[in-house]
């Protein structure tokens, strides 16, 4: 018998559609890190990212029969993750923008910046740069942010980003350029 880990996504999905639930666990193992990273890029919070990405798996499984196979499983699944993240962001916006003070009070979420090999002034500049990047990403239009995060952070091709966002590659190129321009602008003011 074939090892489930060796099966392709489409084969695993087909088995799940036939009622073999445990094959979905293989898809969870395969995509949990990607799903979590996407959610973390959007939320910058470990617990929220965990909840949202797990919720995405639950929804994907509940709707597995609706997956028509016209796109690959991961673009379909990433779309679910992104939609949940955008919904969450919208809810958060209704509650109120997270204050800058609160962001700086949570150094745990930005640990990757606190690099002790650099001088304190360089660390301060790096920390400020990171804060500005996060703030710019947070205030950026959702479509630009999604295009940028999926291409830059997740390494999806523009063609795949277009599939996830259900738009054209040309539109994604424009979003990507605008996002990079906005991020660059936020850093220009720093130096």
């Amino acid at each position: 018998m074939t090892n489930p880990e060796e099966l392709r996504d489409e084969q695993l999905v087909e088995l799940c559609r036939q009622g073999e639930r445990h094959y979905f666990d293989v898809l969870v193992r395969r995509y949990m890190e990607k799903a979590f990273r996407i959610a973390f890029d959007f939320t910058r919070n470990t617990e929220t990212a965990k909840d949202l990405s797990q919720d995405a798996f639950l929804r994907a499984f509940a709707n597995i029969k609706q997956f028509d196979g016209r796109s690959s499983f991961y673009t379909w699944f990433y779309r679910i993750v992104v939609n949940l993240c955008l919904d969450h962001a919208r809810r958060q916006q209704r509650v109120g923008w997270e204050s800058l003070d609160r962001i700086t009070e949570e150094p745990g979420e930005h640990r990757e910046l606190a690099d002790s090999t650099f001088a304190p002034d360089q660390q301060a500049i790096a920390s400020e740069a990171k804060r500005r990047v996060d703030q710019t990403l947070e205030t950026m239009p959702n479509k630009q942010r999604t295009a940028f995060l999926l291409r830059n952070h997740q390494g999806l091709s523009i063609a795949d980003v277009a599939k996830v966002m259900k738009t054209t590659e040309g539109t994604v190129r424009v979003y990507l350029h605008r996002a990079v321009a906005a991020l660059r602008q936020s850093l220009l003011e720093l130096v």
Partner: protein
Amino acid sequence: MKNAMPLQSACKEFEEDLVLYYYGETSEDERRRVGQHLFGCLRCQGFLGDLQRLLPQMARTEELPQSFWDNYYRETVAKLAQQDERKHWWRSLIPQMKIWMVPALGTVAMTVLVIGLLFGKGNLSSFTLRPAEKIPHEILADENQLQFFESMDLLESLSKLQSLDEQKPEAVNTQSSRMRFQSGTV
């Protein structure tokens, strides 16, 4: 982002192409064209250098311990199992069901079905098109009563006719005496 170096601006017409060039998302022709421009343009070289320096750092994420992923996987699989159980909650009733309950439930279901068919919507058309011989007794009784009242009317009419008849001979006598008077027989 560790070194705060002044950012370079690119030639306007090449800015978008340089972003796509950095991501490797240009066609062969575009790549050649941008490459040729880069060869002689220090500003665009600086811009591309900034992208190469900044963008990978923005994507850098914290490494999480293996225990985090083990927990994550366990939790997700448990949640999936829970969701699956909720979806098929009725299956849990099957083992609790006693063997005698099967025919009992079947009988109840059949009774409900028969009652539904008799008094339900499906019976409406046959009810309205019911032949005359199947008219219920209550309605038939009403019909008899109607006939009774009709005959009562007739009886009343008969009594009226009778009273008219009683008046008639007088009228006939008056008329015959008038005729006799006119002929001079009286």
